[in-house]
């Protein structure tokens, strides 16, 4: 926790200086100079525990901690013809420790795999024609950790309806990934030092439509088609067969996922908001799931709100899952990863948001201070906790 707050406030101090330079526009005139519109600093601390690690074949500690810090800077410029150009620069860094990856070498008690750092920068550009209600966006991203490299690109198009009450969006994303094939130590060829590599490609098509129903209610329908191909197993996941032999996890080299979601936000009275979300998901590995989420922000004053939330999730397991020691050589594909097993989960917690008009703690451009805590329980006896902090400058 200390580390989150120290890193959060160090970044805050850094960007407070930057934010002070942003002049407040009190007229309708839109500056044609590129200016910082918003800076977001988000820090999170995540911890989990359980006893079904996939690295040790569905048994063993799942203890993991992750500290994540991201900074997101949004820059805006207005063109001569009323076009709004938005540039978004984001960078994130995670440091995680994992008891399960430490067990890639079963005799190690703190091997090179026990912790790692992930770095994930991204850049995006959005061109909005305000008169026509039309926007076009492009973006690139990357994610790097010791055994995994990912490069992403996306393209999006949005069109508002004539009355500006509805908006249609189409988005296409691709992720081109490379992973090092780190095998469990007992399955490595004697004398082999290097790792092989394999590729994994993901293509995502998204269609969404949002509609304002009345002055208090708006909804959004969203659907994705996600197609993955390449090496979709994880090389250091062990699977113990009924005969006692140990194998690397083996999954099909293609996967098609179809999630469909609906969101609604309803302003009830003057101080209460209902935010609801439902998602149905199906894929060709045999997983079907339902997700229902309800969050109720309560505005206690003009500047302070509390948001209790609850999320329920249920999934059927993949047809390729069996627990420790139950797979046989007759199985074409096999995994003992409990993330792909049949389970239900609940996630509940509370958010707190402070947005005083004069700035947080009187700091003029410090627009928002937000803190959120959630507790997650899964019927496979895995539990986790997450606390996040968002500091926004405008």
């Amino acid at each position, binding site marked *: 926790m200390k580390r989150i707050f120290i890193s959060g406030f160090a970044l805050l101090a850094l960007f407070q200086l930057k934010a002070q330079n942003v002049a407040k526009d009190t007229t309708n005139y839109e500056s044609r100079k590129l200016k910082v519109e918003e800076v977001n600093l988000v820090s999170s601390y995540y911890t989990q525990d359980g006893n079904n690690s996939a690295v040790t074949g569905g048994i063993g500690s799942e203890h993991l901690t992750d500290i994540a810090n991201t900074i997101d800077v949004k820059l805006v410029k207005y063109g001569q013809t009323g076009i709004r150009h938005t540039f978004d620069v984001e960078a994130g860094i995670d440091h995680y420790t994992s008891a399960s990856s430490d067990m890639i070498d079963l005799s190690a008690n703190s091997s090179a795999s026990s912790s790692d750092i992930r770095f994930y920068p991204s850049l995006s550009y959005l061109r909005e024609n305000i008169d026509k209600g039309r926007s076009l966006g492009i973006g690139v991203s990357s994610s790097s950790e010791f055994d995994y490299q990912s490069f992403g690109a996306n393209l999006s198009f949005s069109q508002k309806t004539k009355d500006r009450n509805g908006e249609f969006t189409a988005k296409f994303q691709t992720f081109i*990934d490379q992973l090092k094939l780190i095998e469990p130590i007992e399955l490595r060829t004697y004398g082999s030092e290097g790792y092989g590599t394999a590729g994994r490609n993901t293509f995502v098509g998204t269609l969404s439509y949002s509609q304002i129903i009345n002055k208090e209610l708006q909804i959004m329908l969203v659907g994705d088609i996600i197609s993955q191909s390449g090496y979709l197993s994880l090389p250091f996941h062990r699977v113990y067969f009924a005969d006692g032999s140990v194998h690397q996890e083996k999954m099909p080299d293609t996967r098609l996922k179809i999630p469909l979601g609906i969101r609604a936000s309803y302003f009830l009275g003057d101080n209460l908001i209902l935010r609801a979300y439902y998602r149905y998901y199906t894929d060709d590995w045999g997983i079907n799931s339902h997700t229902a989420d309800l969050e109720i922000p309560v505005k206690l004053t003009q500047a302070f709100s509390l948001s209790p939330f609850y999320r329920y999730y249920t999934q059927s397991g993949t047809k390729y899952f069996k627990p420790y020691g139950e797979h046989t050589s007759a199985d074409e594909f096999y995994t003992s990863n409990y993330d792909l097993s049949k389970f239900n989960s609940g996630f509940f917690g509370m958010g707190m948001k402070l947005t005083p008009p004069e700035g947080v703690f009187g700091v003029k451009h410090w627009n928002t201070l937000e803190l959120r805590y959630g507790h997650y329980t899964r019927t496979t006896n895995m539990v986790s906790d997450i606390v996040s902090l968002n500091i926004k400058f405008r």
Partner: protein
Amino acid sequence: MKKTNQKRLLLACGIVLSTMLFASCSPVKEYQKGKINDSEMVLSNRKIEKTELSFQSYREGASGANSGKSGGGCGCN
């Protein structure tokens, strides 16, 4: 009830509900959007939910349709 029938029933309910909602739309002018434009009414995920969405996509078989992570990066531990 068979799974395929459940899916059809769910789909039919979704279509009926969506049709009823869209049919009840009343045009809202810009100056009437005070509540709709409130920051808590946003239909996308908020910045503070970013890490939550990531861990959910790692710890659960399902992902997507929530503006969260649907690919890229490992998160496999």
